[in-house]
């Protein structure tokens, strides 16, 4: 990767102080996204993937806060900006797409008003120019008859159409990075396919990088270049998407891939990982996966593994420690 990364997250730590003690929701999360790249962030509920997205956009729900680490966008730190500065970064440099298109759009304003407002907030365009751009964005996202539909209200669009509008909104100010949090989960399967194809195409065309957060590996397989697998607030594996899917190095990733039913295979039994992801107030010491791991070693209970090279990917697992005896 010769280009400097667009987004660089280093040793991010997010805490939630509660009256029963401080919960560690994200623990030493590091990854980077190159310009124009699509990084999928996958994990199950409670793994912290949505939280990572929120931290990057600067929309962490209090009392959650960034306790340590850095987030750099284009080399410049964004995790310690004032709310006003962050507001300028959000929208202009970072676009966001959330899961529920129904609540992402203000029902009281037309689609055009919302688009134009976003455009004019971040770009020096006149009202007419902004409207032209809005119509063009709607056309790019595949909404038929955009000149007519631009003056309609969100409730007049179907679910899939609404999500396209949300994508148009996210792209409105030509952001360099788009954070998409479960953009297709609330949509029907046939619409999902349309939306993820659209997202991928538009990202390439506009040269934007995408951080795609989802629990659906199939969506990641179709869109992403690389994928980061999260577990209990940590990144346990990261690498090119085909490698992670077909040659997973971390036992959790292996279990995960094995438990997903696939279309073109007939399996008698799905691979099952016994137990459940630990709650935030009960994360085991050492490697967080050790209670459920089929290949656990004594070392795993004491020392927490960092991401290390494991073939074509990087995995946080002592099995791949090149320097130690197995």
């Amino acid at each position, binding site marked *: 990767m010769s280009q400097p990364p667009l987004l660089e997250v280093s040793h991010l730590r997010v805490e939630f102080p509660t*009256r029963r003690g401080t919960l560690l929701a994200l623990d030493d999360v590091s990854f980077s996204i190159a310009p124009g790249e699509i990084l999928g962030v996958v994990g199950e509920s409670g793994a912290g993937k949505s939280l990572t997205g929120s931290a990057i956009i600067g929309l962490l729900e209090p009392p959650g806060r960034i306790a340590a680490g850095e987030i750099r966008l284009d080399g410049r730190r964004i995790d310690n900006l004032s709310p006003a500065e962050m507001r300028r970064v959000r929208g202009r440099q970072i676009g966001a797409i959330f899961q529920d298109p129904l609540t992402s759009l203000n029902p009281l304003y037309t689609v055009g008003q919302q688009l134009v407002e976003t455009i004019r907030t971040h770009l020096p365009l006149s009202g007419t120019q902004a409207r032209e751009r809005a119509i063009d964005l709607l056309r790019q996202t595949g909404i038929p008859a955009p000149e007519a539909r631009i003056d309609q209200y969100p409730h007049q669009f179907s679910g899939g159409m609404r999500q396209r509008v949300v994508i148009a909104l996210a792209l409105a100010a030509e952001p360099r990075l788009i954070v998409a949090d479960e953009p297709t989960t609330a949509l029907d399967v046939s619409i999902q396919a349309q939306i993820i194809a659209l997202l991928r195409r538009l990202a390439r065309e506009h040269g934007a990088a995408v951080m795609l957060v989802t629990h659906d590996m199939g969506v990641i397989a179709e869109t992403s270049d690389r994928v980061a697998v999260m577990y209990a607030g940590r990144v346990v594996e990261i690498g090119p998407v085909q490698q992670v899917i077909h040659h997973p190095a971390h036992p959790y990733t292996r279990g995960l891939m094995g438990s997903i039913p696939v279309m073109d295979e007939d399996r008698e039994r799905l691979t*099952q990982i*016994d*137990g*459940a992801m630990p709650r935030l107030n009960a994360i085991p010491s050492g490697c967080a996966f050790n209670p459920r791991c089929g290949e656990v070693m004594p070392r795993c209970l004491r020392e927490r593994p960092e991401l290390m090279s494991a073939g074509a990917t990087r995995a946080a697992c002592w099995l791949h420690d090149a320097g130690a005896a197995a």
Partner: protein
Amino acid sequence: MSPVSDAVPPLSAWRRFLEGDLWYSFRHSPVAQIAALLVFVCAFCALFAPWVAPHNPFDLSTIELADAQLPPAWLPEGRATFLLGTDDQGRDILSALMYGARISLLVGLAAVALSLLFGVALGLLSGYAGGHVDAFIMRVCDVMLSFPAILIALLIDGVGRALFPHAHDTLAFTVLILAIALTGWVKYARTVRGSTLVERHKDYVQAARVIGVAPLRIMWRHVLPNVTGPVLVLATIDIAAAVIIEATLSFLGVGVPPTSPSLGTLIRIGNDNLMSGMWWITVFPGAVLMILALSVNLLGDWLRDALNPRLQ
């Protein structure tokens, strides 16, 4: 396969309460603590009035006209035995307050209890049955809401007196409690109906239907426990309202019978004597009424915020 649940054994109800969010919220809310203290003091004095009060103001044998119209103890003509003074008949104000608060609280609590029962039952029925039953009950609610509470109470009270002109005291009390109850049931019905509409469609109710449980049993055992949360808050605040309505009615002379004066009756008696300069006969009952209503309201407010998961 190894079970996935925690190894901690289930705790007793008392321990769970102590470690729960409600107790925590209470411990950290000075307002709630003060309000609770005031309510407790009033309730204690009211409940144990016959033992706590220095005199019995309604025992005619202990009252002497010579003691009448004495000001509070700290004023020049006051006497220590009558801490807050006496009224024009020689009754000790402090004791009258305690007995009065007793009547007021009794009527208030009974009225709220009746109101609650009626309102919750109708609300459950309305929400669960839906259709015409729901429409009918809601229209009745709408009609009742268009009348001011006092007016309804006066109406019922008036009708009661007209029907039973030589009513005994207990009957008068019953009519009064009924009157106040009928002013307040609508909010319970509406709240419970709203919650019932939500719960009714949840899968656990559907599961009970698939098992074959009868609708009444579902309403009683499944839905009711889940809709009582907001009712508790409403009831607490309603007690204050009921006490004030009763005081108003008694002040107007159509409330409790004169042989068992409540705080409202005392205020009225005091009001008649205000011009003579005996301010203490009105002010103290008024102050107690206000403190009682305020404390109960504050407690209700705290309860509502403490029980609201979104504010945590």
